[in-house]
């Protein structure tokens, strides 16, 4: 087991790769009472088109999320919910575009909690009846999401930005996608992706890393995993152009919800010699300074009653693009868009602003270890997007400089734009 210091935090990360290929990442905090376990599969909603064991497969949209719902069933007709309820633990699961996560939050019986998490996720049990029963539940979940304008604006934005990238589809799929899912689809998805070599276990909170590895090793020694070749996910050549430049939809909202999304090819930055992580840090910084709570633009729009609250922003990292989304609620969508567009042509950044934001990021870095769920989630993000836990993120913050920031800012001028609006229903 490897123990690495996490710079400037006083914390350590422990890592181990088990014989079966499962990667284990642990950050203990024995001052708290609870522990948080997540078993993660690198299988998200965008992985529906792939080659596995020599054959090409195309599964229905929403399959990763559907499979997540089914995993809790066990062959003895019990469910993982029953097991964990008996020992007083909280469990849940979620699916993103990139991965699926199974989580346990508890404060006693560490061995039982960890051992059963591995046991239930590595014990597939699917029947036609189970698949059919889950369809009604997921249909209601999809309807619930469609009643939420905040989700609709985000999903709408992705639909309008991407031409081929599978982020243009809903994570849960549509009601018709769900209807088409079969037992065979589910079995294939499980076999292709749910192998320790394609998964990682993250443990944070009150536990002992040596014991955790021993429990995982012992538990998994009872399972036989076939020789595994990771599925080859079909790569789409995503065009630089957006799918739709302007889209509006009516919903029961009082104010317009507006998103302006910038689609920026990663090739823009290839001569800068910055890593993907560094680019993301610079992009976040530039957007935060120009549109965030300390920006003059936000203050101007707030004072003029153009917006009623903050401007929010979000960065998406795909294979060949970054997408920056700027969102706000407004009664004046045209004027709001005009001002954002003007600002996009006049982005600026100063040394003083950079230093101020770095100071806040370092404070957040230290504080994130107070929250075992937050630190666990940060590790998940690192593993999925960077391929490893970034234990020296502090150094990355220290390396941020005005020269590189200015170069990244220059490259932002080359982008495509898509506007998505949810407007009040007449």
């Amino acid at each position: 087991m490897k123990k690495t210091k996490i710079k400037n935090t006083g914390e350590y990360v422990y890592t181990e790769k088990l014989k079966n290929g499962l990667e284990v990442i642990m950050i203990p905090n024995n001052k708290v009472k609870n522990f948080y376990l997540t078993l993660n599969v690198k299988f998200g909603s965008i992985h529906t088109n792939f080659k596995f064991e020599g054959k090409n497969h195309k599964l229905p949209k929403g399959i990763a999320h559907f499979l997540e719902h089914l995993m809790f069933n066990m062959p003895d007709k019990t469910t993982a919910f029953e097991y964990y309820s008996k020992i007083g633990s909280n469990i849940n699961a979620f699916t993103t575009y990139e991965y699926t996560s199974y989580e346990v939050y508890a404060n006693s019986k560490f061995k039982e909690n960890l051992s059963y998490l591995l046991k239930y996720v590595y014990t597939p049990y699917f029947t036609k009846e189970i698949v059919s029963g889950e369809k009604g539940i997921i249909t209601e979940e999809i309807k619930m999401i469609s009643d939420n304008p905040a989700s609709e604006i985000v999903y709408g934005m992705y639909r309008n930005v991407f031409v081929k990238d599978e982020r243009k589809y809903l994570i849960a799929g549509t009601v018709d996608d769900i209807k088409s899912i079969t037992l065979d689809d589910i079995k294939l998805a499980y076999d292709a992706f749910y192998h320790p070599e394609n998964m990682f276990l993250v443990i944070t909170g009150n536990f002992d890393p040596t014991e955790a590895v021993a429990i995982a090793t012992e538990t998994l020694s009872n399972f036989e995993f076939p020789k595994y070749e990771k599925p080859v996910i079909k790569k789409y050549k995503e065009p630089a152009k957006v799918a739709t430049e302007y889209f509006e939809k009516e919903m029961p909202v009082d104010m317009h919800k507006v998103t302006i999304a910038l689609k920026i090819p990663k090739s823009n930055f290839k001569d800068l010699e910055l890593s993907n992580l560094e680019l993301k840090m610079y992009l976040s910084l530039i957007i935060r300074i120009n549109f965030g709570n300390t920006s003059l633009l936000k203050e101007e729009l707030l004072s003029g009653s153009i917006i009623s609250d903050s401007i929010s922003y979000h960065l998406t990292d795909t294979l060949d693009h970054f997408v920056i989304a700027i969102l706000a609620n407004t009664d004046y969508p045209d004027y709001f868009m005009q001002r954002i567009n003007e600002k996009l042509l006049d982005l600026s950044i100063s040394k003083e602003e950079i230093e101020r934001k770095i100071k806040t990021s370092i404070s957040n870095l230290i504080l994130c270890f107070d929250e075992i769920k937050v630190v666990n989630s940060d590790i998940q993000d690192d593993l999925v997007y960077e391929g490893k836990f970034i234990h020296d993120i502090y150094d990355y913050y220290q390396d941020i400089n005005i020269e590189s920031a200015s170069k990244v800012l220059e490259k932002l001028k080359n982008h495509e734009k898509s506007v998505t609006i949810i407007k009040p229903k007449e």
Partner: protein
Amino acid sequence: MVYKEYKMGPYNLHTIKTDKFKLVHMEIIFRNIAVKEDITKRKFLFDLLTDLNKEYNSKRNLVLRLEDLYNASLYSVTSKVGNLVITNLCMDFINPKYTEKEMLEESLKLPFEMIFNPNALNKSFDLKSFDIVKKRMEANIKSLKENPRKYAVIEALKTLPEGSKSSFTNIGSLTDLDLITPSSLYNYYEDVLSKDHVDIYIIGDLDMEEVNEIISAYAKFKVIKNEKLDYYINNTKRKLVKKSENYLYAQTNIVLILNLNNLTDYEKKYIANIYNIILGGGSLETKLYKKLRNEHSLCYNVGSMYQKYDGLILITTAVDINQENFAVKLIKESLKEMENNISDEEFNQAKELIISSLNMSMDNIGRVVDNYFYKNTSDLDDYETRIKEFKNIKKEDIYKFSKKVSISTIYSLVGGEKDEKN
């Protein structure tokens, strides 16, 4: 954790020393009897006080100051809790041992500077900042319909008898908002400072004597309040009210309000919690969850919430429009089962869950403060007593309790399209 109380006259300072967190969390807690017309005003006032003051005269300037304090955060939460309205004005900042020693006083004094140095002149708040907060509140109130579940709960609570404080909402009303002016809000500000009960809680790894010294230099509260404020509301049993309303959603949201009649103190504090967990609170193995989701695939979410100080349980779910009556029937069946058909497994699970949830709360900095606050101002027992009492509950206690439960309201926020056969 080492707890200490400093009785300072116009306010009490409560310190909780622990090295569990790198964060320092301070809450200045204002509480008083809830008055319907004042809830909007109160939320408005504290939103304004945490947005800016005379020195930091715009939200931007305040955020810049917070960033100078190593990304501290300042915010307020106003909640209607039973008979009372409580506002928690919170300040979070990184422990100065990780930054600079001077940050302790700089951070501790900021919330008091916001409270005692508002952006006002001649007993009237600055109009520009008043308008910004008003616009934000208006947008928040109007956006309520964007959350069908929350909207349905608020509408369901409005069916309670006129004057019941349980029907007051935390978010305020547009009618009350329209009546507020910069000077009426300033009058209310003076009222709050002179009439509200004030407690200050601070938790973190600090020298609490030093903290007391700093706070006493800035906390210029003047009026001593001694009368006891009672949290409990009595919602008496009444004939069932059914109400439905149509809206443009894809799902039909259902809310059932259950009245809990003539409970003993012990039932309020202990039995009702276990009853609620078995029925629909807490896990994915509740009676409601099993019946509506697992057995009949009717919904994604179904749950119940115990409102201790209101003497109510609220059940919420969202289903297809054509399954509305069936869902209500299944909820009623679940309630019937609570009277005489609880398995040992369900009962034991509920106890495990509540004890585990108490332990979980000890890692949450805000909930640690809540635990001390409600122990000091209400009837919450200490941690050990609560564990012991929950363990002692018998199934018969739950059956006896279930006889005191009656359905008060069935509310439907109807959305979706009906099948022709229906």
